[in-house]
């Protein structure tokens, strides 16, 4: 049993709005823990469009998703947030004193006075191939991530996909596997050229079987995979013997466990008021793309504004006796001390 982390604020989501919430809370002396299912900060900016320019951040005529993330990380550094990456909040329960207990899929437990949901379009989860009976095989024969390489020793592995994840795991697992096959829809791989060359060398040596096609059907009883039917470009079907399938088709956003926390939802969005950006549950706030209110625009700048107003409400909940005086970073020595510039 891990120790419970007691804190004032837990932010769910390390995208731009979650990161900026650290800043706004930090100015009010609230320390935050930030949880994100991705293994890196930045959310969609880092995962979906790190190299694409964004043109509508006030004061930044052109900035890439990656640069914006780096800038935000520099901006919040003085407030020393604690990040819990590759973790997803699975459970949320209200405690008798009005605080909340949160648990992650990695076993981390928080007790916090406020919760800020900045989860964007939901949590990034692996795309499942559209095979009707894939669920039956998951966990036993179909894996979207590799946790322990040893578990794949001696198996007949089929990797599907043509990107870096597919090729990295092919190269890592091939020495352990009894047989290794990769299936991809075209004879062109977008993965790093070095990985592609290594894979092609293994194919030439006969150590990896390369099949151009798309997975159609899984075969084998009771979740025990025995073979996969692959549709070839000429329309015929080839059956590939395998007992482990690793599909790598990127990530998709799913609302995930937060749908079960008892917060009101409207078409997969969380309705909030526009004074505090609070959900139907006092003490739980929602900012950024995940919330909705009349006139809502899914813009990063809207999320920044929402973070600032949320923090004003959060401080009153966390520390009801504290008198909150509104201050500017340009003139307040107090704020400048917190930012480490005075």
């Amino acid at each position: 049993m891990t120790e419970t982390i007691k804190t004032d604020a837990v932010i769910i989501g390390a995208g731009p709005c979650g990161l900026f919430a650290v800043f706004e809370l930090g100015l009010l002396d609230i320390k935050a823990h930030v949880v994100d299912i991705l293994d890196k900060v930045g959310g969609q900016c880092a995962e979906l469009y790190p190299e694409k320019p964004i043109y509508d951040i006030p004061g930044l005529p052109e900035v890439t998703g990656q640069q914006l993330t780096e800038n935000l990380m520099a901006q919040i550094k003085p407030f020393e947030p604690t990040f819990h990456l590759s973790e997803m909040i699975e459970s949320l329960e209200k405690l008798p004193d009005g605080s909340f207990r949160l648990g992650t899929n990695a076993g981390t437990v928080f007790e916090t006075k406020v919760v800020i949901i900045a989860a964007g379009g939901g949590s990034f989860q692996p795309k499942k191939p559209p095979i009707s009976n894939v669920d039956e095989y998951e966990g036993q024969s179909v894996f979207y991530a590799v946790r322990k390489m040893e578990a794949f020793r001696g198996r007949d592995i089929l990797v599907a996909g043509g990107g870096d994840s597919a090729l990295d795991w092919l190269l890592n697992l091939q020495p352990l596997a009894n047989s290794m096959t990769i299936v991809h829809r075209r004879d062109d791989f977008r993965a790093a050229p070095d990985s592609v060359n290594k894979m092609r060398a293994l194919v030439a040596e006969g150590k990896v079987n390369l099949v151009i096609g798309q997975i159609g059907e899984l075969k084998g009883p009771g979740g025990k995979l025995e073979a996969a039917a692959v549709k070839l470009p000429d329309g015929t079907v080839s059956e590939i013997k395998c007992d482990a399938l690793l599909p790598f088709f990127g990530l998709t956003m799913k609302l995930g466990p937060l749908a079960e926390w008892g917060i009101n939802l409207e078409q997969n969005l969380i309705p909030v008021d526009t004074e505090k950006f609070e959900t139907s549950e006092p003490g739980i706030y929602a900012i950024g793309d995940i919330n909705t209110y009349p006139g809502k625009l899914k813009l990063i700048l809207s999320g920044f504004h929402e973070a600032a107003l949320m923090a004003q409400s959060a401080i009153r909940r966390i520390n009801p006796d504290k008198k909150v005086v509104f201050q500017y970073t340009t003139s307040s020595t107090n704020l400048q001390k917190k930012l480490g510039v005075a």
Partner: protein
Amino acid sequence: MPSITFISSSGEARTVDATNGSTVMETALQNGIPEIEAECGGACSCATCHVYVDAEWTEKVGGPSPMEEDMLDFAFEVKPESRLSCQIKVSDTLDGLKVHTPARQG
């Protein structure tokens, strides 16, 4: 004003007006076409606006760019007439365009 017909995976056709310069994906979202998700909002980063261009139109619409072709690796049931609808710009030459939407985007 060019029109575009979206044909669902179950064969239901809907014809809508489109604006020159906008994308087929934007047209779909504005008209509430199901089976187009467009998670990334048109950045050619997610492959959830996948469509099949009708056989009569593949030549006029043309094929995907190398970046789009890479992104199609994340789509399912990819066919030679597969495109990402955020990468197809509407113009008068595409008036009457027909695209088929897949049963699943992701």
